[in-house]
């Protein structure tokens, strides 16, 4: 089962490697990805597939949320304003 994750990246040293490395390390294949310009930030859409059923995409999402300067979005930001940003809810742990 594939999962599409949308991510917003601050323009920080290493941020792309940081998030892609995390996805692979936590047990997911990266099947497709697209990097695009969002002005001050960059957008990244990644299609991931768990290596085995014990790897949960929800859990991966929470791992991504822990990264700094990297925000997970629940909907495609290019779809237009008002996209549902399921940001970090103040949790930076």
């Amino acid at each position, binding site marked *: 089962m594939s999962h599409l994750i949308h991510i917003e990246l601050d323009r*920080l*040293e*290493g941020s792309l*490697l*940081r998030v892609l*490395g*995390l996805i692979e*390390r936590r047990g997911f294949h990266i099947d497709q990805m697209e990097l695009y310009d969002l002005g001050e930030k960059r957008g990244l859409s990644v299609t991931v597939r768990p290596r085995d059923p014990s790897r*949960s995409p*929800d*859990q991966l999402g*929470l*791992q991504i*949320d*822990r*990264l*700094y*300067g990297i925000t997970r979005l629940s909907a495609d930001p290019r779809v237009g304003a008002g996209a549902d940003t399921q940001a970090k*809810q*103040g*949790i*930076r*742990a």
Partner: protein
Amino acid sequence: MSNEPTGAQLVISTLKALGVETLFGYPGGAIMPIYDALAGSGLQHILVRHEQGASFAADAYARATGKVGVCMATSGPGATNLITGIANAYMDSVPLVCITGQVGTHLMGTDGFQEVDILGICLPIVKHSWLVRNPADIPRILAEAFAIASEGRPGPVLVDIPKDVAAAHTGTSSTATFPAWTAPEPDANAIREAEKLIASAKKPLFYAGGGVEMGGASPAFLELVKRTGIPVVTTLKGIGVVPTTEELYLGMLGMHGTRAANTAVQESDLLIALGARFDDRATGKLNAFAPNAKIIHADIDPAEINKLRKANVGIVGNLKTTIESLNPKVEGIQKWVEKCKADKWEHRFRYNAPGAGVYAPALLKLLSEKAGDKFIAACDVGQHQMWVAQHCEFANCRAHLTSGGSGAMGYGLPAGVGAKLAKPDHHVVTISGDGSFMMNIQEMATLNRYNIPLKIVLLDNSSLGLVRQWQELFYQENYSEIDLSDNPDFVVVAKAFGLDAFRITHRHEVEGAVDRLLAAEGPTLLHVLIDPRENVWPLVPPGASNAEMMEERWDEPLDSY
């Protein structure tokens, strides 16, 4: 020359402004501007003899105090020598700021002398990292680095500073702050749900990890334990969150846990996990772990809830307020508590091992009792580490410094350096093995240079004991590369480094040796020869359920030792 500060001067002034007093490091080419600014700054810099020692010492300084530890190294090999320490801090959630020199910006990416992409190498083992491109950013980045290292679930961060950036002048002043972060408060509904589960449980059990102490919640937790009367097991890192003498404390769970702790977990109908992460060394075979238990899991890190074991109630946020707000009605658990206590008594450790040789568990227990509330153990990794976890008494969690998640041999001696500098009025004792000690043996020179009166107990079984034990039990006694019988004479070596050192070989010498060690004025090593065949018991075989504990007993009258 400009009067404006250099990047390097900003590093030093910002560290001071952030409250740093002591840091650990080792100079070299790319970090020379920072060492130039360090001289005469008033910061206490401890020159270790290997950068790994700097990262471990800073880690232990942080663990012992709750403050952020700081270490520095030059580019290339200096930076890579820090890595084991960074990974260690990452696995155990220790707040650590690592500052590395980098080659000049124009050389980066050209395979310049001593260039290594340390930011890239460390990405998986830091909470965050920075490569500083502009000296004016240094105060802000360092303030951010300290905040990120210590807030929420703590961890290591890396600040890589190219030589030209450190050398350049800038107009920025050294005052920078980073908005303080406050841990989110636990959800009141989740607390109520947890209370309901506790109220309906007949066999509830606390499973407490190092997060309890890191969340500043240990006193509140002890109060909760006393208020509810619910028994406690801890992880390796959680040892001491309640004093080990507390009657409801059943011991450590997991691979080398006590029988009482593992049995309680397997039988419990509700496991209340606080600041713990269901690590495989703690759970054994995961799907056989606590098979009858519902789970309440409280942690500051939302990514830990449901990671390995599904929680019936997850509580994310400030662990101290979580623990303080839990006020469940606890009824009808007396039978359970009595059973737990009876198991604890029946399976208590025995110290009447046969023979006249030194029995390490008995020595360690005695050492911790004699050192009392001021005891701090800095452990290495191996059988001796597990014996410390099993047999020493600890008044609090910050008294037990151990490389838990990473299991890094070589931690003990530099950790002792860091801890003794942090807590000079404590009995800080490094407890090491003959294998581990050799991994950072050079730090005895640091003890001597600064006259740090660390005490060292070297438990010498002339082998890589824990590996030997596994080969004996799980590899048909095929002993492969574990013999260290050609060890140097550790007493002579220690003396050559300027320490006092002495050796014991017999049980009757133990008490006198412990007294002499604790009373010694300067850095002192006690070399203890022990039987290489001694094993750590109990033991859950790798991959097995915690219900399948192996144990060894000897048939001698109890408590005769």
